[in-house]
């Protein structure tokens, strides 16, 4: 998988690159709109991560031009500008997703996976977690054909951990994914533990889940080596 990171803030571009490289993506960086367009023309990327506030041009124009040139990469807009209509405009112009800064790298990675599944048009959009099968479209989890009764939040939690498998997700990362900005970090930071506890209890009723690991005080991990 190849990714073009169009971001003029080099430190940020660098951090994204470190993270995605570890995930097995090949990353290129462009620090301006002109270079981005040049790279897009020269290479064929799977993803373009596009900052809107570029020094030389508006990111939306880069998107427009790239689309006009027939670029087939999936575009994810990353912006700190946060004009109310940026999101709508971006999606209308063919962007696949939109993340406003500050975003989480785990979230970015999860969105990229979701786009991949969508783009490849998998009829049965499922994730295999050991003996459990997650149906992403129907938002259900089955074990040997038996439905595991999860709430919406529990499913979201399991899905996010599955997409970020083999990596510890801190409680803050999980909170942000599930509740976004609406959560008070102190008021609810233990609240995520309640949800994890409930999820574990429900999964354990079907099969042992030693792969569902707790990093004490930090967060949780689906330890599924080789998947």
């Amino acid at each position: 998988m190849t990714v073009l990171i169009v971001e003029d803030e080099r430190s940020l571009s660098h951090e994204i690159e470190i993270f995605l490289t570890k995930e097995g993506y090949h990353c290129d960086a462009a620090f301006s709109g002109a270079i981005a367009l040049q790279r897009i023309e020269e290479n064929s990327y799977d993803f373009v991560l596009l900052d809107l506030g570029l020094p030389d041009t508006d990111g939306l124009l880069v998107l427009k031009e790239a689309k006009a040139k027939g670029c087939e990469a999936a575009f994810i807009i990353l912006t700190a500008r946060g004009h109310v209509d940026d999101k709508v405009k971006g999606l209308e112009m063919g962007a696949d997703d939109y993340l406003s800064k500050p975003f989480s790298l785990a979230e970015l990675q999860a969105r990229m996976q979701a786009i991949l599944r969508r783009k490849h048009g998998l009829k049965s959009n499922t994730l295999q977690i050991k003996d459990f099968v997650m149906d992403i479209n129907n938002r259900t989890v089955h074990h040997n054909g038996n439905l595991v009764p999860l709430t919406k939040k529990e499913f979201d939690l399991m899905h996010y951990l599955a997409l970020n498998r083999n990596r510890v997700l801190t409680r803050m990362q999980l909170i942000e994914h599930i509740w976004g900005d609406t959560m008070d970090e102190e008021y609810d930071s233990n609240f995520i533990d309640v949800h994890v506890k409930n999820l574990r209890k429900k999964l354990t009723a079907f099969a042992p889940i030693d792969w569902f690991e707790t990093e004490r005080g930090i967060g949780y991990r689906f330890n599924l080596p080789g998947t």
Partner: protein
Amino acid sequence: MRLQLKFVIYNALSKALIIGAFALLLPAIAEQVVYKHIDSRLEARRDLILKKIKLGGLDQALLEEDCSFDDYNIFKEEFISIQPISNDGAHNPDSSVFSNEIWNIDEGNQQEHRVIRQPFLYDNQWYELNIGEGVSAIEQLKRTIVTFSLYSMALIVLISVFFDLGFSRLLLRPFYLIVDKKLRRTNSPMQFHFHKIKSTTYEFAYLDESIDNLMKKIQDAFNIEREFISNVSHELLTPLSILKSRLENIVADPSTPEHVSLKVMESQKTIHRLSRIIRALLMISRIENEQYLKDEKAELKSVINEAVDELEDRAQSRNISISQQTENFQYQPCNRSLIYTMIFNLVNNAIKYNKDNGSIDISGKVSGNDYVLEIKDTGCGIDKSQIEHIFTRFKKLNKDDDNSFGLGLPIVKTIAEFHRIDISVQSTLNEGSTFRLVFRKSTV
């Protein structure tokens, strides 16, 4: 009082005043004119008689004039009399005197006459010639003139009121157009249309231009603020984004020791808090800066359901029951996601400040054209002295609660104001609070 009406009343009054003054003066003028006329007639008559006396003698003249030596009259309206007067004293035959006198004509019938007195010498005897003409006709004339002018005044004023009404309406039309199109129908300065309203009246064109100029200034200020918000947003959120990504990479690195990861987790909390505050402030600024569109419909019942669903697990975790009795109401035009945020924040607060095992009652009723939404909790309540501060930014209600940044309710307030939703709070300390929202049916 409307300007149009004032204008018409002023016009009518001033006309009545002018015509009234004229009507008052008219009889006096008429009198002057009539007396002048009578006087010249009397003089002509005097000259004629004196001439006859000179030519044919006094007797002949008396005979011809059909009047007595002493007092004689044919008509009551006029008379001629010639009386001998004493020869003593100086009589000036060249001077005649006009006067108004009451003459006794018939028995007991006295009438006012205009009289000319003319002394003359005949046969060495001085006589006085008196010629009189009745003036009761003049009084009648005066009355007629006054009556006529009063009626015509009333008529003229009435007609002019009618025309003034029409004319002033026509005259004031641009004014009402300006107020209606430029002020009343302009909900936000950013939606203002700079089209000239045609008027040949200088003042209205001036008003129109002044409003345009003012709006231009406001729009410029809004645009500068918009630019500023955008810049602040970028300048604050970009470094935050770098920090956040870096911390994630540190946690994701297997070589990071556990005690460092713990610190990083704490830092993530701080960053979350910081970004939450910045986003909340930016949201408030953007709403106040009219950056959100209000062009959607919201089925309030389903918006409330969504918010409650999203928060159900939080309520459950503290065993707080939420009961909902909501009628549906289609609220428009609005920004649905802002309405959702507003209701979400209120329900979230009702959970957050509730006690364990407490309850929340949400009721939504259509009341006439309005929709009244009440969110009632059994929480800690708000002290009376604090109620006025709850919508103030960064006001903490509980001093021991570190995490009450007090932006939830300011956002609610801002969204409510943006939609012109009335919001009020009733609260009893330690018993709970009720937030009441009144959504008004749009008249647009």
